[in-house]
């Protein structure tokens, strides 16, 4: 998991413009609301890029711009080598977009929905029939293929929406909160499917706030806050698995005893829930350790020092940490 440096992106590598997504300085306002206030982003082919941000940070708006549905007020956009504004159909032919709430035609069966979209993308009938069968199998809806979409559950509809976005074999995939409403099994499936699609050389951009999910499936991450791409404060907390430093979540029966011991031992710590007031009872902190060996040493010394330890485990994902260090609040 690496956090992209927006500035470095803006400099541009140029190699990804053909098949990937390049966004530079994109702005978009809805009346008085500045939904996008300068987004720089680069998603490369062959990778899953996570779009992370609190509610109202402009994720959906950005994906709408990329899908060619909204005109940006300013900035440059290139999707699979085409500008969605000036070359809309060419860009849309290569883009698969899945909205966060996929509505469906209640009276149509799942297969008919996909057939309609194959027709709408002007695909040849015969090969698209075969592909639709494959897609239904991929999203595990084969047994629902000929039932009206109105009987599908929310998660099943979500999977149908994913199949719909894939009907025309797009080079670029834009998924808005695809994991919401999915059961754990389907989430694993989704993760594997996205992995495979990326491995086939596609560009996959996923927005979500299920951060642990994103972390497991994404190669890059872009953070949005108040319509801007932001580089999270990585001075503490966000670490890459590679560099040996890890954050551990340590809990004890007595928070003061734990923090006192950590202070005495000279270990840097921070509260695990900075938004709540410190307690005198049980509680936990986040501690930076030097790999698993550092963690083992910490636990051994703390127990020896008489701290009533309850648990010590690797802290929640780096993405979540980064997310929480974003200065801006949700709106």
């Amino acid at each position, binding site marked *: 998991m690496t956090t992209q440096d927006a500035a470095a992106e803006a400099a541009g590598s140029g190699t990804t413009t053909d098949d990937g997504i390049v966004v530079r300085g994109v702005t978009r306002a809805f009346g008085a609301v500045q939904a996008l206030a300068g987004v720089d982003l680069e998603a490369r082919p062959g990778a899953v890029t996570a779009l992370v941000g609190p509610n109202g940070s402009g994720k959906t708006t950005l994906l709408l711009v990329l899908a*060619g549905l*909204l005109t940006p007020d300013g900035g440059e956009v290139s999707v699979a080598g085409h500008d969605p504004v000036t070359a809309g159909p060419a860009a849309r032919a290569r883009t698969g977009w899945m*909205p966060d709430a996929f*509505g469906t035609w209640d009276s149509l069966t799942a297969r*008919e929905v996909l057939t*309609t979209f194959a027709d*709408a993308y*002007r695909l040849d009938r015969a090969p698209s029939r075969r592909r639709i069968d494959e897609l239904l199998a991929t999203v595990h809806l084969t047994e629902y293929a000929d039932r009206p979409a109105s009987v599908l559950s929310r998660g099943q509809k979500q999977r149908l929406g994913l199949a719909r976005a894939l009907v025309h074999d797009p080079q670029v995939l834009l998924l808005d909160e695809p994991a919401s409403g999915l059961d754990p099994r389907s989430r694993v499936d989704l993760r594997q499917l996205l992995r495979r699609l990326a491995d086939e050389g596609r560009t996959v951009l996923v927005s979500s706030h299920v951060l642990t999910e994103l972390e497991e499936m994404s190669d890059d991450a872009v953070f949005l806050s108040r319509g801007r791409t932001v580089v999270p404060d990585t001075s503490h907390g966000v670490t890459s698995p590679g560099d040996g430093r890890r954050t551990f979540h340590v809990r004890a029966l007595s928070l003061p005893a734990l923090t006192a011991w950590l202070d005495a031992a000279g270990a840097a710590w921070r509260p695990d829930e900075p938004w709540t007031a410190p307690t005198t009872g049980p509680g936990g902190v986040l501690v930076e350790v030097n790999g698993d060996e550092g963690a083992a040493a910490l636990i051994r010394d703390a127990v020896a020092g008489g701290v009533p330890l309850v648990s010590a485990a690797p802290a929640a994902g780096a993405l979540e940490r980064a997310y929480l260090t974003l200065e801006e609040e949700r709106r």
Partner: protein
Amino acid sequence: MTTVELDEHPVAVPPAHPGHWHVTWHGVRTVAALELRQRVRSTRWVVALVAWFVVVGGLTLLISGALSAVDDGADRQRGALLFAAVTFLVLGLGLLVTPTLASTSINGDRAAGTLATLQVTLLTPAEIALGKVLAAWTASCAFLLASVPFLGFAAAVGPTPWWSVLRVVVLVAVLLAAVCGMGLGFSALVARPAGSTVLTFVTVAALVLGTPLLFGVTYPSVEQTESVQVRVQRTDDVTGNPTTCELTTQQRSVAHTERTWWLLALNPFVVMADGAGTSSSLDQAEARNDPLGVLREGVRLARTGASATIDECWGVDGGRVEPTADAPIWPWGLGVNLLLGAAGFVVAVRRLSLPQGKLARGTRVA
């Protein structure tokens, strides 16, 4: 996780001329088939069609029975009245039903979250709009088709020529197409489905009720006293019998309806009456009993207005000149209705065009 080969498949090819107004039959059919499938499968639709059949059939029989009770005279007179009644019934009910078919097709889809997914495909805005109009129109034509037996029955009773049935069906179908276009336009303009349905109904009501009302309200303002030419008859001083006609100039109060006749022409019922062409094969006595013919003559006279000479030379054989008002009115009315429908269609295509700059207030794309 089932592993499925996802390569080797059809590639979406954008059309060669991807303008917003580019239309292919494939694209229109795709949208229309989608809309019709979605509509026709709901049981509500079947219920509505059956209810329609029963209502039109029942009213036809009722009117027919009532007419034969009132006047057990000539079938031929009764027939003209019955045909007019059924024609107006079919048109009136069609104008009631059609606004609900088209007026939610865009904002309803937006609310259901299905519009944007369709827009991002390679369908052009014109194809989406045309497909939706076609579907709504086809549905309203199904209602029209269900009433053809009763129109046929009414024509069979009396002097109405068979081609009048054909003209009525075609005219109603075209008028309903125009209403579909207006409904589509409103559904593209207004965020809420209820709002666009109301606006479509208001427009139809303005055409049906508003135009004669306005004609009536403006009547006093076109009425004035002025010197006009009047053909009067000279009577023989001895016998008192009329002998010759003479042109005189008199002060008369006349209504210049030639300035306001177009208000009546916009009315779908006037378009029907004028376009049905029932009276042309009737003799004078029959024509007086044909409401369609009477309406048509009335509106044509209103169009002539006060521009012609007033003829009061009744007594002289062959002296009175029948007012000639042969120019048909229905092409004007139908044309304006179609223009309104076309305007709705153009609005819809513009609103469906991607990418969107301004959004209607209170709507999200997705």
